[in-house]
């Protein structure tokens, strides 16, 4: 009996250590992409079988709680700003000269007609904190050996997915592939990362494509034109007042 208890104890300790290991890998990869603060100029290209549309924006992020996105092109959306503070999201609409608070149900839905969700852009949920992680195996992506990690949302987390499978490069901790599953366990979106290069102080993928599973010929690309990490940004930058002055 004692032996069995010991066995269970050791097994559970081992499993917990393995779980922590998976969490640490995800956290390391996430920290690498986000830094303490991050500022980026990016192009977002929505691709459909017969046409495509391009959008340009600037983003500022600080930790998990603070994010701001300014749209700089096309002309009709120029000056629109999205602000996230903790769980709240606002948008500044320059033509109306008004701030509009968005309902939480917007977070899981498409952002500005792209295949990225609001959550993908402003990172309301945290891949490190809002999920339980476990290593499911190894795989080879773009010639790099990667961990396959299953991520199951914690019960209290405001996450729209039932499961996320993420592949992280073992050497440089790069998130190279990510698959998002809905409540029925059906694949909804796949994200691939490419064009790995040094930007600012780190080696990161700089082109990401989000591919909806059930729509042939559709995808959205996000390309970093420039990125700056760990520049100090005061919390007072992430305020409703500030959204009105960015453009």
């Amino acid at each position, binding site marked *: 009996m004692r032996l069995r208890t010991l066995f269970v104890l050791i097994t559970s300790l081992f499993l917990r250590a393995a779980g922590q290991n998976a969490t640490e890998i995800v956290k390391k990869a996430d920290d690498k992409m986000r830094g303490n603060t991050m500022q980026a100029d990016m192009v977002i290209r929505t691709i459909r079988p017969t046409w495509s549309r*391009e959008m340009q924006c600037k983003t500022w992020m600080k930790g998990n709680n603070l994010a701001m996105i300014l749209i700089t092109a096309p002309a009709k959306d120029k000056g629109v700003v999205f602000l996230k503070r903790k769980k709240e999201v606002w948008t500044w609409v320059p033509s*109306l000269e008004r701030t*509009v608070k968005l309902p939480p*149900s917007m977070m899981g*839905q498409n952002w500005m007609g792209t295949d990225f969700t609001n959550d993908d852009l402003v990172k309301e949920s945290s891949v490190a904190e809002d999920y339980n992680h476990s290593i499911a195996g190894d795989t080879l992506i773009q010639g790099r050996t990667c961990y396959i990690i299953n991520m199951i949302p914690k019960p209290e987390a405001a996450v729209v997915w039932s499961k996320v499978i993420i592949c992280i490069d073992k050497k440089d901790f790069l998130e190279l592939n990510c698959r998002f599953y809905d409540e029925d366990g059906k694949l909804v979106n796949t994200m691939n990362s490419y064009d790995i290069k040094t930007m600012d102080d780190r080696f990161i993928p700089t082109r990401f494509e989000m591919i909806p599973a059930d729509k042939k010929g559709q995808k959205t690309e996000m390309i970093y034109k420039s990125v700056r990490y760990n520049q100090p940004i005061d919390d007072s930058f992430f305020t409703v007042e500030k959204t009105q002055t960015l453009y």
Partner: protein
Amino acid sequence: MKKLLLLVLNLSLASFSLAQDSTTVSKFFINGYIKDMQTFSIDSSFKNTEWGNLVHNRVNLKWKPSDNITGAVEVRSRIFYSDAPELPAGSIAIRNVNEYVNMQEVWVNTHSVVFTSNVERLYLDYRSGKFNFRVGRQRINWGMATTWNPNDIFNSYNFLDFDYEERPGTDGAKLTYITNNTSSLEFAYAHTALSNGNIGALKYAFNKWNYDFQILTGVYYDKPTVGAGWAGYIGDAGFKGEAQYFFAGRDSTGHLNLTMETDYKFAGDWYINFGLLYNNYGLSGPVNTANAIDLNLSPKNLMPTKWNFILTTTKQFSPRLSASTALLLSPGTNLFIFLPSVQYNLATNLDLDLFWQSFFAEVNNDFKAMRHLGYLRVKFSF
């Protein structure tokens, strides 16, 4: 004034070449649009139709000589043509009495064509630390809800006027003090062309329990007023509201406008918004003549009817195509408005939009269509 308008119009033409790289010109920004809208109106008998065409240009200039100072000029020009026997086109030449300084120029005003330009914004803005001061013609927008905004006492949003989302400005000044990252205090004053039509009010805005709140008090057209608004959520659905009370004067009773709404974005890009408006001055029973329903809306009169319910549904079919319908019902008076629209993006900066407005009401115990309006609009943004 003519010189200023001509200058801005010239800049507007020049901006088509500038617009491409406007972000690289760090101190000087220009944007705007040119729209052409075909309008079509049928009366209740479906016999008399009227056609019109509106060419509509807006040029927004912004000048940022330093991080603290911003100057802005925005000019709106319209050429309206109508085949109507009377002169409905003349109405666009009427100046806005909320504006104290007349900066409107009517270039052409004939039986069927009106060409007019107005300076819609002309202000200087100064920001320093926690203070922000803006003086001149500006939009002071205190609304929080989507369809109706009782708190927007400086210039109400008429939700039927879809082609003028910027709204007119008011001549005045606004001082904001940012108390901390989630709260602010604002004082605003608007001087109008009406003898006792000035507005002065103080607003305190703060964030608590994931809700934005605001409380305001001031004087509207010589009468004291108080109001409050909120924007937050219940579960995953948005929950917003605004209430504004205008105290009784010598020859009037107290006046309350109250709105509440909830919105939700469903999977598959469906968006639904349900709102209600209570206007204690509004009509609550059937009318004997259609003219009793006055759709000239103001901050005090957001709807001519007492109880109003609106259900707006929007479906985005693709990043280029979306459609929307709004159903507005005012029980008692039995006013019903049906507002479908389709938005189609032809090219990056080119949009084609179709709007429809059908008005129905019960007049002399007979529920019938009163008027139908159709609009087809092409918009080029720069």
